[in-house]
């Protein structure tokens, strides 16, 4: 996620040019032009690959290998999309990917917010403090280290399927998400909870009625991180899922990457189809991501 340092001019000062001295707008516009140029160039790093993906997806096979990535499709062709759709059994792969991702996002938000609440409100007890460190410790265990044992274990307990992948995704998201939630919870005034307790609320009610809604911005951030990690993951589903028909999209797409053949139009059509949900989700939720990040950073 590129969080470029954008200088925001407070609303009350925007009127300054009309009322203030004539030197001030000059200084500001001088300060902003290079920054705008740099930011515009930075957006190219995202927009250019996106453009290539879209145009490549609608080229014919012979045009896609002509060495000219930036040309517009002529004639536009839907054959790449059709072939990618069939080769990956797109609807099924998409459904499995969505299932795994939804389970991961929901599981991560629920479990890590509960854990963070328990930990942050019992910080003075050794058990909770240490369990926090224990959870954080998982951040230092990358999946490849555990792959062999995870493959064996999930196979033994019958979790060599998308559910197992989702469970493992939740587990690997847990430490970082709990860290985010715990930091955020410390900034919530305890007086709010005390007032709820005075009205007779139980701990569970305080959490569901008061704390969890207040955590919403951080939940959005955690959810987005979990979404991206789960939706884009290749290694875990490829190792854990045993039934090929229950495989997720990134793994199904790996058949397009070989050294001997270049089917750019088919590959990019498939990438476009699997990229689209991530982009759409980000477009609709970026407001909360930004809000969540800044709320976590500036108390």
């Amino acid at each position, binding site marked *: 996620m590129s969080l470029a340092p954008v200088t925001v001019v407070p609303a009350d000062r925007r009127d300054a040019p009309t009322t203030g001295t004539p030197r001030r707008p000059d200084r500001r516009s001088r300060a902003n032009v290079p920054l705008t140029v740099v930011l515009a160039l930075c957006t190219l790093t995202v927009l250019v690959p996106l453009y290539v993906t879209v145009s490549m997806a609608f080229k014919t*096979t*012979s045009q896609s*290998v*002509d*060495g000219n990535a930036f040309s517009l499709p002529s004639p536009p062709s839907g054959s790449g999309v059709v072939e990618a759709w069939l*080769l990956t059994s797109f609807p099924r792969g998409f459904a499995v990917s969505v299932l795994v991702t939804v389970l991961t996002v929901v599981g991560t938000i629920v479990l890590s917010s509960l854990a963070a609440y328990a930990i942050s409100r019992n910080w003075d007890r050794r058990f909770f403090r240490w369990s926090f460190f224990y959870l954080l410790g998982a951040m230092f265990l990358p999946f490849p280290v555990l792959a*062999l044992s995870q*493959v*064996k274990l*999930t*196979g033994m*307990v*019958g*979790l*060599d*399927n*998308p*559910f*197992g992948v989702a*469970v493992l995704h939740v587990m690997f998201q847990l430490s970082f998400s709990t860290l985010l939630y715990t930091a955020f919870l410390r900034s919530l005034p305890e007086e709010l909870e005390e*007032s*709820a307790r005075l*009205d*007779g*609320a*139980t701990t*569970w*009610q305080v959490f*569901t*009625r*008061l704390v969890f809604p207040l955590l919403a911005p951080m939940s959005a951030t955690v959810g987005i991180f979990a979404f991206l990690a789960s939706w884009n993951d290749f290694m875990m589903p*490829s*190792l*854990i*899922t*045993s*039934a*090929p*028909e*229950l*495989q997720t999209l990134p*793994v*199904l797409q*790996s*058949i*397009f990457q*070989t*050294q*001997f*053949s*270049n*089917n750019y139009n088919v590959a990019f059509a498939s990438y476009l189809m699997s990229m689209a949900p991530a982009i759409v989700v980000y477009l609709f939720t970026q407001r909360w991501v930004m809000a969540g990040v800044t709320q976590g950073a500036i108390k």
Partner: protein
Amino acid sequence: MPPTLTTTSGMTRRMFLRAATLTGAGLALGACATPGGGTATLTFHQSKPEVIGYFGELLAAYQQEHPGLRVRHDSTSNLSAGFVRSSPPDVGCLNYNFEVARFVERGVLSDLSDLPEADRVNPALHPLVELTASFAGRTSVLPYSLMAAAVLYNREIFDAHGLTPPTTWTEMVEVCETLAAAGVTPVYGTYRDTWTIGQGLFDYCVGGMVDVDAFFRQLRRQGADVGPDSPVSFQKDFREPVERMLALARYSNPDAASRGYGDGNLAFARGEAAMYLQGPWALTEIAKTDPDLPIGAFPLPVTDDPGDRKVRVNIDLALWIPEASPRQEEARALVQHLMRPDVIDAYNEFANGFGTTTDAPDVAHPTLRDLQAYYDDAAFYLGASQLVPQAIPIHNYAQALVTGSDPDDVLRTLDADWARLAFRS
């Protein structure tokens, strides 16, 4: 918010418990969803992307002939994970390379020697299979399709300059000189993709001069003792082929260092070079740009004896059945079906492969027909770059050679790498 707090206390806890139960049930259901039950399911692992559709239809037809049997076509699962989990595919049909070699050497593939189909396999291929990997007393794999690679050349350009495919190294140099003098790029190099140098220039020059099979057998016998004083070593036996390789590389396009495989296919299809050192897999790529280009093929002559000309082959697909498969009967029946002459020959015709059985017809592709005689005479070798374990970056060394490293240095490094690896394992 506070006034409503007290009313729903039991409700929320019950909801939580219910949600927990549902999650648990979901997990249990997921566990039950693993295959099994009524109809027998056979998993067929095949991941060569170009022929996934072909095998899909083949298996669908087989399924119709055998009611009660479901054949699952797997092209994405991770093989190692399947073996670790003790649920490998029932039948594998994969490139016979170092990945499959690991399974062969550990003896997890069942013996297929008692199948009548095993006797139909061309005996000339046995050394190739064994050199890559073997397990004592077992026929672990049945070769299914063979790829033969040589120099592809543009017939139009050769005809325009009155050239014929060279049969000796001297003629090869003459051909290159004639083309270069006429302003035509003799050989198209794609050095950005290291594997194209390894399988092309490097393998062709080594295979055309050195007895690859004998060299690697002796090398393995020597163990860690590889150097200037050992019976065979890279620095002694590969020195001359590497010189020829560098001599040939001088006739490449000047921008070869920045060109990749895709660029090479495009340039050759557009007639920008006369020769291209690639295997049959490039033919389909070239046909994407120009399906009617008349392409011929000849094995690269590296010595001045025309009898030394050989083609580089690799076993593109081989069939195997893991011992851990619970459905040996069905798996063997499927292998036998796939080995049926009409089935295997149709596949090889489709995939530009050479038949691996003694009763196979000649190859169908017009370009590859030029190589049939060499295959029939068993004038072929496995690529040297394929016989070096992947722990040694042989393709990168090949790239270093063509981009100007000192050949003696590189070959000494190769010897040292081999010795270290042999010492470790």
